[in-house]
């Protein structure tokens, strides 16, 4: 009775992971392949393979122009999109799990507004921190994001000692609006940097290059690892903080770990790509539906699928109206909102059992 159950359980999980990895790999290939110059999957495989395994001579005989397009233009963009998508999706999943609310996302809590204020301030004031150099914008942005989440949580604590879900979300909304007005203020006062700011706010992963990938990578790895370690605690906390405490979870610690990890991820994502909406809300939802809500698996699966989703969204953003480009935030919202609406409707129709 017990063995077959474990086997099906593992088999299920294996399918979930295999499927998600294949989806991601497919997205990477598709994202690299399509564009003004179409490139075959084989060439991509050989060039990337040659890069990953320099002694394999896989990339020998490939067109150096293609190599340049892939390695200098398309691949960094695809990788960045993947990292941003993964970061947003996983922090959305973490926020939803922590706050026990399926409607939470990294942005409703005001983290993104904080990150935006930091980034826009850097653009507006044209400052450059001496120790950070080209990292100034993301560093300031991430710092602002972390500060924001702790101010939001601190304020929520002040209002309601039990830090109920509703209070945190309401506080997040208050801070979002408040910080949003700072952004508007800077936009209205700015002259030269307006276009830069607007472009940044609309969100884009284009023309960033490997530098930005290097920028986000440490935060991404750190944040995702932290969240992966808290999967089981998040599972316990979906039954309420009180119950989690009774089960032996160090709730206070876990809460701060999750909040900071998710904020680092959100902040880093917003810092390199601007505010890209809906990924953090919709991807965790779809993943929960498809793979169940065990956070130990939900978190890595959200990373994989969030990455793949944003790579495809970016692909659409840059190919749908060639030669110009749509802001990626527009595309995710255009796809995300109807998808979310459809899920909501199916949930209602499906009743309690769905």
């Amino acid at each position, binding site marked *: *009775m*017990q063995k077959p*159950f*474990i086997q099906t359980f593992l088999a299920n999980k294996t399918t979930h992971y295999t499927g998600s990895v294949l989806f991601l790999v497919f997205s990477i290939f598709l994202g690299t392949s399509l564009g003004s110059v179409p490139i075959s999957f084989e060439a991509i495989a050989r060039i990337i393979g040659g890069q990953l395994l320099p002694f394999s001579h896989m990339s020998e005989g490939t067109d150096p122009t293609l190599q340049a397009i892939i390695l200098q233009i398309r691949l960094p963009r695809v990788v960045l999109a993947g990292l941003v998508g993964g970061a947003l999706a996983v922090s959305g999943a973490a926020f*939803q*799990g922590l706050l*026990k*609310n*399926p409607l939470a996302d990294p942005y409703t809590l005001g983290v993104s507004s904080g990150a935006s204020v930091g980034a826009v301030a850097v653009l507006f004031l044209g400052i450059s921190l001496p120790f950070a150099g080209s990292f100034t914008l993301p560093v300031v942005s991430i710092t602002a994001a972390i500060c924001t989440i702790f101010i939001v949580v601190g304020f929520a604590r002040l209002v309601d000692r039990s830090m109920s879900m509703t209070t945190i979300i309401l506080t997040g909304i208050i801070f979002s609006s408040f910080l949003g007005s700072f952004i508007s203020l800077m936009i209205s006062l700015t002259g030269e940097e307006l276009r830069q700011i607007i472009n940044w706010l609309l969100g884009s992963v284009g023309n960033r290059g490997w530098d930005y990938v290097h920028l986000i990578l440490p935060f991404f790895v750190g944040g995702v690892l932290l969240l*992966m*370690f808290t*999967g*089981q605690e998040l*599972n*316990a906390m*979906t*039954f*309420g903080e*009180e*119950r989690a*405490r*009774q*089960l*032996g*979870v*160090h709730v206070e610690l876990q809460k701060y770990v999750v909040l900071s990890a998710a904020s680092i991820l959100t902040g880093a994502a917003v810092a390199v790509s601007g505010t890209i909406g809906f990924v953090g809300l919709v991807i965790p939802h779809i993943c*929960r539906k498809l793979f*169940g*809500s*065990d956070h*130990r698996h939900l978190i890595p699966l959200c990373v994989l699928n969030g990455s793949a989703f944003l790579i495809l969204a970016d692909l659409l953003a840059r190919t749908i109206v060639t030669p110009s480009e749509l802001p990626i935030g527009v595309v995710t919202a255009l796809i995300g909102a109807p998808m979310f609406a459809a899920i909501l409707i199916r949930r209602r129709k499906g009743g*309690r*059992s*769905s």
Partner: protein
Amino acid sequence: MIDVQHLYAGYDHDILHDLSFSVLKGEMFGVLGPNGSGKTTLLKAINGTLPGVRGDIAIQGRPITRMTAKETAREMAVLPQHHDVSFSTTVEQTVLIGRYPYQKGLFKQWTNEDYRIAEEVMEQTGVTQFRHQSLLSLSGGERQRVFLAQALAQKPGILLLDEPTNHLDFSYQKQMLDALKQWSLKNGLTVVAIFHDLNLASLYCDRLLLLDQGKVKALEEPEIVLNEQHLSAVYRSDIHVHAHPSFSKPFTNVVPSFNEDKPKSILSPDELDVSKERVYYKSRQPLKCYSSAVLHPGFGWFEEFINVQVDHSFRCDDPAGYLMTEAERWGCQIHRTVGMMTAADVEDVSIEFMENEDFTLLVVVTAGTGNAVDVVHGSSHIQETVPGTINTWVFIDGHLSEQAYAQSLMTATEAKVRALMDMGINDPVTGTAATGTSTDSVLIAGTQQGTTLEYGGTISKLGRAVGPAVYKATKEAAARYLNRKEDGF
């Protein structure tokens, strides 16, 4: 097992004041008290999830303040009153989370042991069939059982329950408490449970802690804790405690105190309807009766009373069934009717009615002395049910204690004996003075309102009325019976 010494706990201000008690291993320990008396706070304090607790709480001699959260969770599990269910977690996952306190390592995978225990507790709580279903698709009672399985998966020595039967229907309440009791008896599981239902607590708990405004009001066995003074004081409402009809445990009920317009005089001889075949009395409201009647004997609430005449030669295997048909024929509602039968002419019924400032009394007697018996020589008679004879109904408009019922029964019987003696009626077999007939029946019925009548003995207020009235009525009815016999009928 659990030692609590001088505990003070609360939220903004202390709710519990200087609580000291201990719970033994394998004990089923009930916590009672009105809303806001600190029951849930106490549970949280014991569980170590409430900050700012003063005093000492020790589990098996170890202070809980020195235990890590996971250690505490391995020692005791909690089944809370409310559950947060926000995502569609499967039942299996939910139960497995109960193994969290045993998790080791960074990525925390479940071991085979975890799966085995989850399997076992799902079986025990009967949720195995829902294992792949979402929690959201389950009913409140089913969810409650899933969370019980989760708590049991912690393999605790102590189980803390906050109103465990809150969302359960009657049969699951029983099932769950039976199971808990069984585990506590078999595996030495210590159960500390908050109860709102005093009767469930009385039936299942070994000891009860009655809290009143954060202080211990009583801590003893149910028999001692559940008394009217304690309960009425703590719950600030009228609560009656009785002997449980089938267990040696106290049984409580609240006393409703809404106002309803009730007829002023409930008893009246005018309501008595006598015909050749039966005597029938319908009370204006149900009366609490205690009787040796054929139909519906014992204690009960009834409002129709019928005494049916049967022939001398009447023999029946199922007298109660016969009376049911008779009562139905006379238009009585069976479940509200007390029925007796007699071979005497019911037209010879004798009625005594008296009113005094405290209560009203109505006595109705039909008598036949054909098979008169001297109680001392009962063994000289052939054992046979001959249709009965002296049927005595005593209706009292007053509030009788159970003691008063027993005493009124004695008083009425003594009065009957005295009447038979004064009439010079003898046992036809032995020739000695008869004390009654072999099939006499008596009914004591009280309206249970108005004056409280604590006693019914011969010189009590009630007995002084019942005795002479029954004596007079019995004598009169017996005289009429004898007259009719002499007249040759």
